[in-house]
């Protein structure tokens, strides 16, 4: 684990007054600089780590963000001895925390574990935010199904030309990503076969966040 704090050192005895003072001042300046650096790291969304219980515990905070907006911050409290293990957290139960713990070695490579966990959390926050924006910005689109993990989204859109309703299903089976892995369309209970228009829409939905994709589809006149 990185030790990010340096201890303040007092000047050694036997040095003369001036050099002691300037040494002390230099160290204090360095200490302030490091604190500022840590705070900057905190503001830009880096992991915060603080020692708790006299070095026996470590508390980490993992911020999440999407599209330049800070969202939820999640926390983990870890007991360091005898082997690192999580004693407390506020991570939702549909994030596979225990699987991630098993897959990584917290003792030697805590950073990898945190990075993977952060990926899952950020992706989840991102998908959740997209769903929220979709509901806010696109009142004409009806969300038929979603789930707590935001890994599936089924919505009903209306095609202006034929005035028909099309059911769009977005599968986000890669939980470390904010974009869907599969998109398919159903109209009147049948899967829509390949057609250049729907293929274009499919690529749009696969490559663009859903709320933005729907705005584009509206502008292009694909949906009402």
């Amino acid at each position, binding site marked *: 684990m990185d030790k990010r704090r340096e201890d303040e050192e007092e000047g050694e005895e036997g040095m003369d007054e001036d050099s002691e003072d300037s040494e002390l001042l230099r160290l204090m300046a360095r200490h302030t600089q490091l604190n500022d650096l840590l705070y900057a790291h905190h503001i830009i969304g880096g992991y915060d780590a603080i020692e708790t219980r006299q070095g026996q515990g470590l508390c980490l905070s993992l911020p999440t963000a999407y599209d330049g907006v800070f969202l939820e911050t999640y926390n983990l409290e870890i007991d360091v001895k005898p082997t690192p293990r999580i004693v407390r957290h*506020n*991570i939702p139960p549909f994030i596979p925390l225990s699987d991630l713990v098993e897959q990584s070695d917290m003792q030697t490579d805590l950073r990898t574990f945190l990075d993977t966990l952060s990926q899952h959390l950020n992706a989840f926050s991102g998908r959740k935010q997209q769903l929220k924006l979709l509901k806010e910005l696109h009142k004409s689109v009806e969300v038929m199904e979603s789930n707590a993990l935001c890994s599936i989204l089924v919505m009903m859109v209306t095609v202006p030309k034929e005035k028909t309703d099309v059911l769009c299903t977005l599968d986000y089976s890669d939980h470390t990503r904010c974009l869907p892995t599969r998109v398919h369309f159903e109209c009147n209970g049948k899967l829509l076969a390949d057609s250049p228009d729907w293929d274009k829409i499919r690529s749009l939905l696969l490559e663009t966040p859903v709320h933005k994709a729907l705005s584009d589809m509206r502008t292009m006149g694909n949906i009402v």
Partner: protein
Amino acid sequence: MDDSARRLLQRLIRRIPAQMLKTTLEKWGRLTAAQKQSMDFTEPKWAFTERLLDICEDNGWTGKHITELEMTYVIENPNQGMWYAFQLMDPEDDARSVELTHFKEQFKSHLSELARPVSVKIKKHADDAIWIRIAWGDSFSRPNHLKPTYVVHHLQTPYVFVTSLTSKQKPFLSQALVLSTRHQAIKDASLSGRKLGAIRDLLMRQYQQVFPTSYPSPLAERNGTVSNPQIEKEQAKSAENRLQMACEAFGDGMLPQLQSSVYKLETKFKDHTNKTMTEREEPFRCVVKFASTNLLESLRHCASSGIASTPVTPLLSSIPLKGRNYFVIKDNGPGPSSQTRQTQN
């Protein structure tokens, strides 16, 4: 409408408080505007029921529609009776991709096979909760709609909340849930309460938890509202520490409303002044129950005001930490549960 449906409706209208009748019927959404206009919500319930029965007869509605109305009422007003939490264990590889339609089909089919005859109704609520209503029958009788079991589950989470389930029905429900959610087992989560939302929020961690942080604590900031600089709080620092520890143990802001916590002790009696009790071979069996209208709020206040010592004892902090309010304490461990501590999930 047959007799049982009629009786069900009568029971249901009797059960729904008068002030909620209008909104419940509204949410049910089956009455036309004209029919709604014709209902007089001020008349006595028996008269109201008769009018509603007439409307049902006119529309050719059956027991199915009445159970739908009941479900609407229960979903909006779930805080009746006791809810018990269960936890699904050992997910299969495809547990994380179980989706709604699949779950519905599988649950209905498994339960029907296990507990024939049974009447199952599944409804997905706006907040991703799946509500299941089960009316159980047996080889001699049709499903009894007067004593249904209600089950709530969120897909991709391991928790299931159940009310009104008998011990005879439990194995069938457990098996159907395990199979349809692609897990290998289900166990009692040792958490119960009258408010569904509270036990759900506790397990899904939907309340404001507090973690140690090196940056200014929002708690300290919030409490810095001392307007008069002439007033100095003695021991302000220790009060702040107590508050911080209390909030770290229980959480900040509104806490999920639990009504009780039960500790079943099976420990040897320890009191050197009482030889008779200490010399006994068997453990001293005793049950300690804490009860309150808002237990977690009370415990947090005990800790922050100094009535309970801080750091908060694991016996109390385990309630939110482990998400349970029933503990069996034996001699082999200092912790509140005889299980070894594991990573939480």
